[in-house]
């Protein structure tokens, strides 16, 4: 009985249900040469948290992949995966990097 309970508890702990929070997309350029992608996440226990810095990390990571260029067609997805007592908050961003001709 205890073994079954433990197995059920482990299964519930490891399986998560994902839900979409927000999604947005900006103007998409004609030239879609270089797609850059970044994501960041953090773990929250029982929904207690004091910061949202992970979202900034995703944006910084995206910008770092297109230094000197312009990113357009930015697609942003914010989702939360709910586990038994823990939540995974995640921001996924992607866009098209357009570099100046002299850099290329």
């Amino acid at each position, binding site marked *: 009985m205890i073994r079954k309970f433990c197995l059920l508890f482990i299964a519930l702990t490891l399986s998560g*249900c*994902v*839900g*979409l929070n*927000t*999604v*947005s*997309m*900006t*103007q*998409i*350029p*004609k030239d*879609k040469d270089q797609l850059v992608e970044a994501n960041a996440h953090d773990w929250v226990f029982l929904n207690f948290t004091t910061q949202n810095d992970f979202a900034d990390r995703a944006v910084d990571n995206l910008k770092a992949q297109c230094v000197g260029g312009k990113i357009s*067609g930015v*697609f942003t*997805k914010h*989702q939360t995966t709910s586990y038994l007592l823990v939540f995974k908050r995640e921001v996924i961003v992607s866009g098209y990097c357009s570099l100046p001709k002299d850099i290329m």
Partner: protein
Amino acid sequence: MIKNTFSTLALLSAVLLLNGCTSSIHMVNTDGFDQAIPAGVDYKYVEASTKQHVFLGFAANTNYVDDARQSLIAQCDGELTAVSTQYSTDHSFLSWYNKILMKGVCIQ
């Protein structure tokens, strides 16, 4: 009398739940109005929508959102402006549909 009223309410609730007649919109985002459509240039309105069936709250991914994006981009060889994104949910009995609707103006 009370029994009849209760039966009517229960029947109405069941019909409403089974028909999935409730719907909610979570967010709408628009962007990309900095590009004016030049006169004499070909343009067309493009639209893509995808949905995800969720039963009892169990959902493994949000890939339907990416599918909507890919579908919208695939319809436009040129520049895609005035992009609007709408996220909504249609409720049904013990389950619901998450829906994404994306629209834009494709300038050739």
